[in-house]
């Protein structure tokens, strides 16, 4: 195994982690805090890509600005969605699943009707670097860096801001948080907005590397679901990070040595196995351990 191969494997690993993280983080934060699975997540990603592409081509704005607009736009849309749809289903999680599926159908088909079957994609900064016989895309590494940066920012917000503390408190005991003066409705609204904004950002970031079609969300949702199921909702940040790292660790060598098909099947089977042994996902497992340790710490 040459050094070049190792570098290439590392690059693939980073690439895969970035994809899983960006696809799943928004979904996971919504699941963790609001406790709802948003089946329209893929369509929110699609919206992000569409806003980026359309503003770039029609308004001729610089690409980073387009991406920022997507993030904000989809975030706002997510808040509307929370206000008018999701809010009614806080007592009926399965109902939320079904209702968001309806939203997903409306968004994807509506996009087809309004914008047609495809859009011209936005151009990609073509900087590459190489090592040995391998060459790598700089943009993909940038995506990895951004993904990690988002996780760090999310972690910082969660653990080092008042809003983060309130959000975590709401996750742990919403009634108590309310009794202490936290407007949990606003927390839910905001969280849904942030989760949606992350979806929009994902769509915007991947817009230069994917085909811009109304059903493009599908390429993100299946891996996002797997990542979320494996990660669990107990702690979205830890869950997303560990789950993306673990799944990539399984899928990357498989894809790299046995081919993409094996990587794919490996990913799916890993999800089934993890759930068999950790029904609440990795972060749920960590939480259980922590509670056990707390119990032991005192008695």
């Amino acid at each position: 195994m040459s050094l070049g191969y190792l570098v290439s494997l590392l690059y693939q690993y980073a690439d895969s982690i970035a994809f899983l993280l960006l696809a799943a983080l928004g979904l996971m934060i919504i699941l963790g805090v609001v406790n709802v699975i948003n089946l329209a997540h893929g369509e929110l990603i699609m919206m992000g890509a569409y806003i980026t592409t359309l503003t770039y081509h029609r308004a001729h704005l610089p690409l980073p600005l387009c991406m920022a607009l997507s993030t904000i736009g989809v975030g706002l849309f997510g808040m509307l969605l929370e206000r008018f749809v999701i809010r009614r289903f806080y007592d009926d999680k399965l109902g939320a699943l079904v209702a968001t599926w309806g939203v997903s159908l409306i968004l994807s088909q509506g996009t087809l009707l309004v914008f047609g079957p495809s859009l011209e994609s936005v151009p990609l900064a073509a900087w590459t670097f190489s090592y040995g016989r391998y060459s790598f895309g700089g943009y993909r590494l940038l995506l990895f860096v951004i993904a990690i940066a988002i996780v760090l920012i999310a972690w910082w917000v969660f653990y080092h801001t008042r809003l983060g503390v309130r959000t975590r408190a709401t996750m742990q005991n919403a009634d108590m948080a309310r009794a202490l003066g936290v407007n949990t409705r606003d927390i839910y609204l905001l969280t849904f907005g942030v989760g949606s904004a992350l979806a929009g950002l994902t769509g915007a970031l991947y817009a230069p590397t994917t085909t811009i079609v109304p059903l493009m969300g599908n390429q993100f949702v299946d891996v996002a679901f797997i990542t979320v199921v494996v990660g669990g909702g107990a702690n979205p940040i830890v869950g997303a990070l560990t789950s993306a790292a673990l799944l990539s660790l399984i899928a990357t060598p498989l894809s790299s040595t046995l081919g993409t098909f094996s990587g794919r099947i490996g990913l799916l089977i890993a999800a089934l196995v993890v759930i068999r042994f950790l029904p609440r996902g990795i972060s749920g497992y960590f939480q259980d351990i922590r509670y056990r340790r707390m119990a032991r710490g005192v008695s």
Partner: protein
Amino acid sequence: MPTPSESDGVVVLHAENLTKSFGGIRAVDHLNLTLARSELRCLIGPNGAGKSTLFGLLSGLHRPDTGRILFKGEDITNLQPFQRVRKGLCQKFQTTRIYRSLTVAQNLLIAGGTHTSNRKKNEKLSWALSTLGLDSEHEVSAGKLSHSHQQWLEICLALATEPDLLLLDEPTAGMTPEETALTAQFVVNLNRQALTVLVVEHDMAFVRYIAQSVTVLHYGRIFTEGSLDEIESNQEVRRIYLGES
């Protein structure tokens, strides 16, 4: 009080050395408890003494950290809750848990016919239903029953499983004094029909009415046991209730 021994079949329940902790708080602490057949025992104690946790351990909702539970001489420590019910140990929850969307008849239909023979008429149950006046409310949706009727219905659900030992957790919570008295009378009559009953209750009027023997729980341990008179005259018990120990 006679000391029942396990071999002669007089003992229904024997729990020894039970411990259970939650998040740093030891709710039940090396507790031993023995119940004789046809006994009617009241379990009292100040808030947080571990009564509900003990019930959870007995019914199988919680697994003990240490200790074991024998029921009719058989070790049931590792049995699932439903297996314990089939062996004849049934619980009424603290907050009423009945199937609110279903009618009384449907509730009873679900409860009846698990481990016992379906063909035999459940005398105790029909007696209970008519005593409590639930037999005229068969088609009423359980969620629309009055609060006391919901409590009674839940006792009847437990009776429908034909238990040998009935655990009642606060059966009179939220009832008027008259309803409390009726419930107490009912429980005593039930007990007379050779049913072992363990009750957690705070309403002293109720305890006074029914109890043959009272066990006081404090900090997860048995503080003292005895007849109600003994307990009532026990200054130590009074002190723990008033938070003085």
